């Protein structure tokens, strides 16, 4: 059963074709990766899926499970980002976008606003429903912070966290929206090998513990090859290869795109 599908998605900015005919099919419970050289259109693809951009052509289909475990396919092409988040797709950002002046706990709690089912009046007047909702949100968020090793920082400002912790906080915040599909945009960017290793383990554990499907963009090939079930390779907006890590690793087109094989090297 596929959770996310894109059908011939094309994203043009003026004359530049950032994403050309993207066909992605992510199965439920899978860990898929999107790789490719800089400027290949990976983040644009994410932005199309999460509704930041409305694609020039093509469709994005998402099949979330409802509370009874029944999946139904929804066309999310061009929907607003907050609506898409509400349906169950959460994301992190390549260039960290935390709410810098808010505390760590507040950062995560903002993400629970999507599930708020009381009006601002009952929130202001602290009516029982709102108090219950807030307490539950706080408990859930503290649990998430505990999971990601941030609980000791919960009252610090997000901007005062060290870089690696900020990356973790981005993941915690995305998880707080209670997603079915988690999109990670270069979660290991700027991390050293040890940190990358720890992150690999963490992502894998989160995936099992929260019953997630993960789709990530990453440049650390060790991480990608180790945990991905399925890999898509983009170059200049086109999907040049797809398959299991082994298939992709041995694909001549991929090697060419990454190493830039040309006439000189072949000599």
């Amino acid at each position, binding site marked *: 059963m596929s959770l996310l599908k894109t059908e011939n998605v094309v994203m043009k900015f003026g004359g530049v074709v950032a994403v050309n005919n993207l066909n992605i099919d992510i199965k439920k419970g899978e860990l898929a990766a999107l790789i490719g050289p800089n400027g290949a259109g990976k983040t644009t693809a994410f932005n199309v899926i999460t509704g930041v951009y409305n694609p020039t052509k093509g469709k994005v289909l998402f099949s979330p499970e409802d509370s009874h475990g029944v999946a139904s396919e929804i066309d999310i092409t061009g929907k607003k980002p*907050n609506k898409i988040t509400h349906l169950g797709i959460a994301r992190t950002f390549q260039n960290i976008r935390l709410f810098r002046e808010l505390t760590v706990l507040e950062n995560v709690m903002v993400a629970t606003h999507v599930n708020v089912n009381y009006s601002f009046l009952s929130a202001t007047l*602290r009516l029982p429903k709102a108090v219950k909702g807030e307490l539950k949100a706080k408990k859930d968020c503290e649990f998430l912070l505990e999971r990601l090793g941030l609980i000791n920082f919960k009252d610090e400002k997000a901007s005062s966290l060290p870089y690696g912790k900020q990356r973790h906080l981005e993941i915690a915040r995305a998880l707080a929206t209670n997603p079915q599909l988690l999109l990670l945009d270069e979660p290991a960017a700027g991390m050293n090998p040890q940190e990358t290793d720890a992150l690999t383990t963490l992502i894998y554990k989160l995936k099992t513990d929260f019953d997630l499907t993960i789709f990530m963009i990453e440049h650390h090939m060790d991480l990608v090859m180790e945990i991905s079930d399925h890999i898509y390779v983009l170059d200049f907006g086109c999907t040049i290869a797809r398959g299991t890590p082994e298939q992709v690793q041995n694909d001549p087109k991929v090697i060419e795109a990454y190493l830039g094989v040309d006439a000189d090297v072949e000599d």
Partner: protein
Amino acid sequence: MENIQHRFGAYIKIHWKTIVFLGVVLITIGLVDQFVDSYIRRLLNLCAIYTIISLGMNLVNGFTGQFSLGQAGFMAVGAYTVAVFTVPIEARATIFYLAPMSPLLANIHLPFIVALLLGGLISAGFAFLIGSPCFRLRGDYLAIATLGFSEIIRIVFTNTQTITNGALGIKSIPTITSLWWTYGIAIIIIVLTVLLINSSYGRAFKSIREDEIAAEAMGVGLFKTKMTSFMISAFFTGIGGGLFAALLGTVDPKQFYFTLTYNFLLIIVLGGMGSISGTVIASFIVTLGQEWLRFLDEPMAFGLDLPIFRPGLRMVVFSALLMVIVLFYRKGLMGTNELTWDFIDKKIKTIKSKFNRKKTSTQGGDDK
């Protein structure tokens, strides 16, 4: 108190000091209300009204990060609503002597509190109309639209002779003199704002200020959230405007020039964009400061005939003050901090450690 603690659980802790502080404030208001003369009374009333309006402005500009400049317009709406509906029916013929009041309104008289709330609601309605197009766009369109709105509403009120009595304004509005009206409403609004800001909605406001794209990706609906904040802000401002009309006893369009908005902008910048206690403190500083610096406008300020002491110098000094603040306290007096007991404790500790032999104490402002 046991009861309150239990009900709110870990969600809101009401410090015993807060309750004592609130008690002290209420007693002070009661005492001051008994003993001060009408000049001080009016000044203090004005402080409370400015607090209400600035809080409204800070909600949009400071907490939600949307630049609105429509305070004068929303105030005018609230002020005129109170004026039109509370002027005694028998006095209306003499007030509207150029053109009689529209027959639809001529016989409607509402109690003050109802008119006040109605003024707030109509203001919020206008906010909805302005916000609908502006919040669909990204960027600073709101500032332009609200600035335009406050000018338009003033000109509309100048020309709707049969409703607002045009440029003549409306006189003989029953006045409020007791401090309880203004301070009561100001305290209620401060408490409501504190509760709102510390709720899920308040966090949503702040997340939009911090990063719109991330907020939207985390499921915060930008349009709806901005609109909520803007309408609440306009509601508070309308109420402030209504109190303003009832304090002065007269309204006319010239009171609501857009320059009035800059008073509130000054207050929120001085107090700190995104600080409730900062806004309250700054409201008092600015309102009282503008009054007490009046001596600078007198030609004979220090017994000497100095050429610089002439009308307008007061505002020069004020502008210089604003520049000093922008240069040295870029985030205002309080930044985004609140004057909570923890904050005061921390400050006292740092001051104590600095001057170990001298014991210094700080005064508290409002608190949650």
